[in-house]
C-alpha cells in the first residue's frame, strides 16, 4: 500500500522510466510466448527487411530478429541481474563485516579494495576472462567480484554511520553476535541508499556485459544476447541496413529507464535525510 502511495507521488520522469523497465521485464519473462519463432530457428534469407512475418526483419543467419530480441532480453537481463545480486551479496557482507568488526580486518579489506579499484575494470575483466575462459558462470563470477568492490565501499560507509547508533550499541551489549547485528540492525537501516545503488550497479553491470559480449568475450552464440547481436550484425551497417541499431538501442532503452528511476530514488533518499 505504501508502495502504491509512493508511486502516485512519483514525478513523470520516474513513471516513464518504470514503464521502460516493465516493457523489458515483460519481454524477458514472456519471451517464448510473444516470439513467433524459436531462439535459433532459421526462418528466411539473410538481413530481410521488416515485414508482417518478421517485424524487425532477419539477422545475419536469417533468424527472426524480433524473436532474437525477445530472447536477448531474457538472457541479457537475467545474467546482468544475477551478477548484480551476487556482487551486492559479496559487497554488503564484506562491507558490513569490515564496519562492524573494525581494526585489522577493516584495514586489510579496505586497502585491498583500494588497489582493486585503482585497476581499470574492463582491462581486469579481459585479463581474468583470458585465464578462466568465457563460460557464463565464469563471466558472472568475474564481473560480480570486480563490481563488489564498489558495493563494498558504499555499504561500509553506510554501515559506519549506523554502527555508532545507540540501538546497535544496545544490541551489542545484550550480547548479539556480529551476524545478527549485520542482519537485523544494520541491513534494514541501510536499505534506501543500497536500493538506489543497486539500480546504478545494475546499469553498470548490464552495460559491461553488453560490452564484453560485443567484444566477443561475453555471452557466446548461439544464445541470443543484445551485445553479441550488435557484433554479429555489425557488417550490415555498411550496406545501409540498420539492424545492429535495434539491439544497441534496446540496451540504451533499458539503461535510460533504470537511470530515470534511480534518479527519483536518489532524490527520495536524500530528501529523507534532510
Amino acid at each position, binding site marked *: 500500500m505504501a508502495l502504491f502511495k509512493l508511486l502516485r507521488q512519483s514525478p513523470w520522469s520516474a513513471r516513464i522510466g518504470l514503464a521502460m523497465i516493465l516493457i523489458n521485464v515483460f519481454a524477458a519473462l514472456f519471451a517464448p510466448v510473444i516470439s513467433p519463432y524459436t531462439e535459433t530457428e532459421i526462418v528466411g534469407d539473410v538481413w530481410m527487411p521488416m515485414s508482417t512475418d518478421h517485424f524487425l526483419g532477419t539477422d545475419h543467419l536469417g533468424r527472426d530478429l524480433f524473436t532474437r530480441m525477445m530472447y536477448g532480453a531474457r538472457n541479457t537481463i537475467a545474467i546482468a541481474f544475477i551478477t548484480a545480486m551476487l556482487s551486492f551479496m559479496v559487497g554488503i557482507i564484506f562491507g558490513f563485516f569490515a564496519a562492524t568488526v573494525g581494526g585489522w580486518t577493516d584495514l586489510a579489506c579496505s586497502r585491498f579494495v*583500494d*588497489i582493486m579499484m*585503482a*585497476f*581499470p575494470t*574492463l*582491462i*581486469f575483466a*579481459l*585479463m*581474468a*576472462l*583470458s*585465464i*578462466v*575462459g568465457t563460460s557464463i558462470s565464469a563471466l558472472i563470477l568475474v564481473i560480480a567480484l570486480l563490481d563488489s568492490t564498489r558495493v563494498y565501499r558504499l555499504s561500509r560507509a553506510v554501515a559506519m554511520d549506523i554502527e555508532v547508533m545507540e540501538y546497535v550499541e544496545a544490541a551489542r551489549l545484550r550480547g548479539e553476535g556480529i551476524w545478527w547485528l549485520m542482519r537485523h540492525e544494520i541491513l534494514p537501516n541501510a536499505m534506501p541508499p543500497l536500493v538506489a545503488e543497486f539500480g546504478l550497479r545494475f*546499469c553498470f553491470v548490464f*552495460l559491461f556485459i*553488453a*560490452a564484453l559480449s*560485443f*567484444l*566477443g*568475450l561475453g555471452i557466446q552464440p548461439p544464445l541470443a544476447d543484445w*551485445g553479441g547481436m*550488435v557484433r554479429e550484425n*555489425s557488417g550490415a*551497417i*555498411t550496406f*545501409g541496413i*540498420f539492424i*545492429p*541499431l535495434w539491439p*544497441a*538501442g534496446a*540496451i*540504451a532503452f533499458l*539503461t*535510460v529507464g533504470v*537511470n530515470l528511476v534511480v*534518479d527519483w530514488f536518489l532524490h527520495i533518499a536524500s530528501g529523507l535525510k534532510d
Partner: protein
Amino acid sequence: MGQIIELVVKRVALGLVTMIVISLLIFVGVEALPGDLATAVLGQSATPETVAAFRKELKLDLPPHVRYFAWLGGFMRGDLGNSLSNQRPVAELIGWRFGNTMFLAASAAVVAVPVALILGILAALYRNTLFDKTISMVTLSTISFPEFFVAYILIALLSVQVVIFPSISNINEQMTFWEKIHAIVLPSLTLTLVVVAHMMRQTRAAIINILASPFIEMARLKGIKRMRVIVLHAFPNALSPVINVVAVNLAYLIVGVVIVEVVFVYPGLGQLLVDSVSKRDIPVVQASGLIFAATYVALNLLADVMSIISNPRMLNPR
C-alpha cells in the same frame, strides 16, 4: 610547503605499491592455472612433449618467484617475451599500436576537455534554467548509451547516409598527419561524446559545490560583483576539483578506447588486447594489460598530485 611534499610523496608511494600489487595479480592470475593453461591453449589432443615444450616456452618450469622477477625485469628493459600465436616479440607488436591508441585518445581529449569544461561551468552558473536542464538530459542519455551504440549511430549518419568519413579507421605509417586525422574522425568523435558527457556532469557538480560554500556567500554578501566573485573567489578553489575531473576522465578515455577501437577496426593496443584474449595469447595479454593499467594508475596519480598542489588551502596553511 613541507606538508604538500609529504602528501605528494605518500601518494606517489601508494601509486608504486598499487603498480607492484597489480603486476603481482597479473602474474599470479596466469600462474593460478598453469597445467590447465597449457592444455587449454594447446587443446586436449596435445602430447606430453608439446605440453612440456610449451611450459618451457612460458618458462613454467622455473619456480614462481624467479619467473616473476625475470618477467618484471624484462618488462623494465622493454623485453616483453614472444607472442604465443605468431612468435614475434611482444614489444614489436605493442610499440606502434600503443602510439596509435595514444594518438586516438589525445585527439579526443583535445576537443573534449575544453568543450566539457565550458559547458559544465555554464551549466553550473545558469543552473536550473532550460539550458542546464537540456544539457543535463542529453548527457544523462549519452551516459546510458553503450559506446558502440553511439559509434554505430555516427557510422549510420556520417558514413552511410552521407558519405563523409570512413567507417573503418585503418591507418598506417605512410599516411600524412591530415589523412590520419580524417581516418579517425568517427572513433574520435565517439570518444569525445562519451567523455564530454561524463566530464561535463562532474564539472557542473564540482562548480556547484564550490558556489554553495560559505566563503562565496560571504563574498556575495560583502557586495562584490558577480564576475569578480567567480574569477577571484570561486575559480582558484574550483581549480583543484576540476583538474581532478579532467585527469580521471583522461584515464577513463585510455580504457574506453578498447571498444571504440574494435568497432572501427583501429590498429590500437585495445584491439590487440581483445584479439589476444580470444586467442589466449598470454604474454601479449599480460604486457598490454600491464601497460593499460600503468597508464591508468599514472593518470590517476597525476590527478591526485595536481589537485593537492593546486588546492589553495594546502598552499596557504594556517
